[in-house]
């Protein structure tokens, strides 16, 4: 079998894996969404403790997915890793800082002797919850809007602005995706709380917040999607010359109808999840918005990289733009890693099993007041 697998196939296979990890990451950022609400949603300390503990039992999944996403991207498309991380330094560093402060905040916040006080660690959670999804959204938006960099013969990156990534915050389309991801995380966070916590007042308040957060999400998401389908993208001809193609992403949707269907199914899933929670007061919205998020993000990654599209365009020098075909690892490495990737369904199965074991019972006031391990 191994000899029959082409390089092109493996490059696309690994783009799918990376896209899958990215889409799972965006869904799992419901943890960050929940964190961003810890000052505005709860009405008392107990409610805050419940929110923190609901999110705190899942933060490792989000964190691990982020780390694995980084590792898989490095291994399968090292040129992206060296180009983007080595150039857009400040964006990635800001993302990193926001995640460093999260990891300890849960464990330290309520422990006696934490030196800086509970409030400091709650602020850490809030900062990670707000900045993390927003900045990741901005960074991913540059997959479509481009960055100013050039590569030399040795593929060494030279960033052509003095802002090293901060300039991406000046692009309104990047900001739109940043806000869309942030508000989507908050929506998923609220839906997760509604599903997991056994507290009537908190569930009711979460429902109200859901409506408030859905409006900026829809506005920023619509703005980004409309501007995306109307925008140009970079493609390359048979000689490898990179050119700009008008309505490239619209073409990608139309030329890959399956991806369009996945995208639409994802959007409908998210909207349905919000809809049944607001209108029918259902507590199962997360079961639709979660998979919907995964599908929508997955399809966006596919149109970013598939169909001979530059997934990391250089607006400074088109020829330096990164494509799946020129940024990937070698055939041998991609093939070796593919064998390891076959274990992913098994991993998803045990995650599901363990997740269910812990989530079987809802978080209650009694549990928060017990001697059990809690944050």
């Amino acid at each position: 079998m191994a000899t029959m697998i082409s390089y092109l196939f493996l490059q696309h296979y690994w783009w799918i894996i990376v896209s899958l990890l990215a889409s799972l990451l965006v869904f799992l950022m419901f943890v960050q969404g929940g964190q961003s609400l810890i000052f505005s949603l709860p009405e008392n300390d107990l409610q805050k403790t419940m929110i923190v503990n609901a999110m705190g039992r899942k933060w490792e999944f989000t964190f691990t997915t982020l780390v694995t996403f980084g590792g898989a991207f490095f291994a399968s498309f090292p040129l992206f890793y060296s180009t983007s991380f080595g150039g857009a330094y400040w964006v990635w560093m800001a993302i990193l800082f926001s995640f460093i402060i999260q990891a300890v905040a849960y464990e330290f916040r309520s422990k006696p002797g934490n030196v800086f006080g509970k409030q400091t660690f709650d602020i850490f959670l809030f900062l990670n919850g707000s900045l993390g999804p927003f900045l990741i959204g901005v960074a991913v938006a540059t997959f479509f809007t481009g960055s100013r960099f050039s590569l030399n013969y040795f593929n060494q990156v030279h960033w052509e602005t003095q802002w090293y990534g901060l300039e991406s915050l000046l692009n309104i389309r990047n900001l739109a995706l940043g806000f869309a991801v942030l508000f989507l995380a908050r929506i998923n966070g609220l839906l997760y709380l509604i599903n997991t916590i056994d507290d009537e007042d908190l569930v009711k308040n979460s429902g109200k917040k859901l409506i408030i957060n859905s409006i900026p999400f829809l506005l920023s998401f619509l703005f980004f999607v409309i501007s995306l389908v109307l925008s140009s993208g970079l493609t390359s001809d048979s000689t490898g010359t990179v050119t700009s193609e008008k309505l490239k992403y619209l073409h990608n949707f139309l030329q890959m109808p399956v991806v369009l269907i996945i995208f639409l199914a994802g959007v409908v899933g998210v909207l349905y999840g919000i809809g049944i929670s607001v209108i029918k007061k259902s507590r199962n919205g997360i079961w639709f918005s979660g998979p919907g998020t995964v599908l929508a993000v997955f399809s966006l990654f596919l149109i970013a990289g598939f169909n001979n599209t530059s997934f990391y365009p250089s607006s400074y020098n088109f020829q330096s733009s990164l494509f799946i075909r020129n940024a990937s690892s070698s055939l041998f490495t991609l093939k070796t890693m593919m064998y390891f990737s076959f274990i992913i369904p098994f991993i998803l199965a045990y995650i599901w099993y363990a997740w269910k074991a812990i989530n079987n019972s809802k978080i209650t006031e009694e549990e928060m007041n017990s001697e059990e391990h809690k944050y």
Partner: protein
Amino acid sequence: MIDNFDMSLVDWSRAQFALTAIYHWIFVPLTLGLSFILAIMESIYVKTGNEEWKRITRFWMTLFGINFAIGIATGIILEFEFGTNWSNYSWFVGDIFGAPLAVEGILAFFLESTFVVVMFFGWSKVSKKFHLTSTWLVAVGANLSALWILVANAWMQHPVGMIFNPETARNEMVNFWAVIFNQVAVDKFLHTISSGFLLASMFVLSISSWFLIRKREQIMAKRSILIAGIFGLLSSLLVAFTGDSSARTISQVQPVKFASMEALYEGKTNAGLVAFGFLKDSDKKIGSKTVKDFAIKIEIPGLLSVLTGGDKDAYVPGLKDHIDGNVERKIMATPEKMERGKYALGVLQLYSRARMTKDKEQIESIKGIFNDKDFQTNYFRYFGYASVLSPEDVIPNVSVTFYSFHLMVMLGFIFLLIFAMALYFLFRDEIADKRWFLWIVLFSLPLPYIASELGWILTEVGRQPWIIQDLMNVSGAVSQIKTGSVITTFILFAVLFTGLLISEISIMIKQIKTGPRH
């Protein structure tokens, strides 16, 4: 590739990586070892049904939890810093180096992070057996995580299983098993995880000693000492055994590092192993570089030759042999390696020009050179030497490597003694009365942390000036960003990590003083 010589950028980038790695390594060894100690304790609980063992397990699990999160927090930075601060490196070797990182995430991190949640929160939610399995899986996952990153690091010390592709200007993996079973990787993995087991055992031993000194929780303390004593003693022996194997491998694949570890300037047969020594300024020179020499040393005659070559007549090359060469011993001089490196670079530049002019004939002919075994083994393997300015630049800091190695080894023997004595006193039921010993154990707590960090300082400083041994030096690997940006993030990391460390120690002390709650 060789024209990046902003040394302040290189130095700050190195400083930042060193800072984050050192902080990361304060927390990780405890996770590696304590996870197994927890699993052993919980196994006894499940087997005997004795609730005291559950209480003991949960007490140590609380301390594990405090340490675990900060280890993760500091780890994520290292992964991303390969890209942010060493982007040229990321491309040059990403085809090989990235794969273990990805496998690490897929195989190990998810195992660890999934079951750690069950371990912390599942006591009353899942069955005893499921909980115990989760605890064991956390231990396995944590140690598997260490495996893959150590494989990647071992490859930087001894690059194997790859070939350079001039078309992509990078090294590409051709033999995955060679990368995994690289002798350096095997030594490094076993040595590192066993040192983590040792550190965690010392942690449990020290805190248990404190309880005995305070005459509190005596049953818990004694039972903990029993587990930590046995686990620690076995780990210490494994550390010594793998350390010996590791040093022998270094003598073969990184002989300059090895000579620096021993501060061995002149090669010799019947070379003695320095058991103890102090270095002082001297007039001694290697090339234009003045080096330090021994003010005092205690040497075990012939042992270095025996340990590295199997008998006392084995020749152990000194730093001078590596710089000036030694025809009789078939050791190539560094200037010759520099010439060969420059030749390899010249061929690569020719290839680059041929590609620009689209000279197909020339392209094919140079590709042939790169595929030639003789070129790979006799020229391209010295590629990094093309950017070495002066032969003696390939010598790492001798004082740092010498002291870190010897202090680490000395501490290793002290730990062995402590574990043996702890078990001896415990089995004679005298440990609670040996207050002098308990105080010594308590104040020994920082020592395994120091030994562990020294091991990494030896590994990384000893490899300088290379980021990949003989193939790429640190100045060619660094990201071309502003030095000021790196200084800023360095300061931010230093402040943040120091704050978090203070907080963690304070919480730990508070939890220990509170004692077991359940």
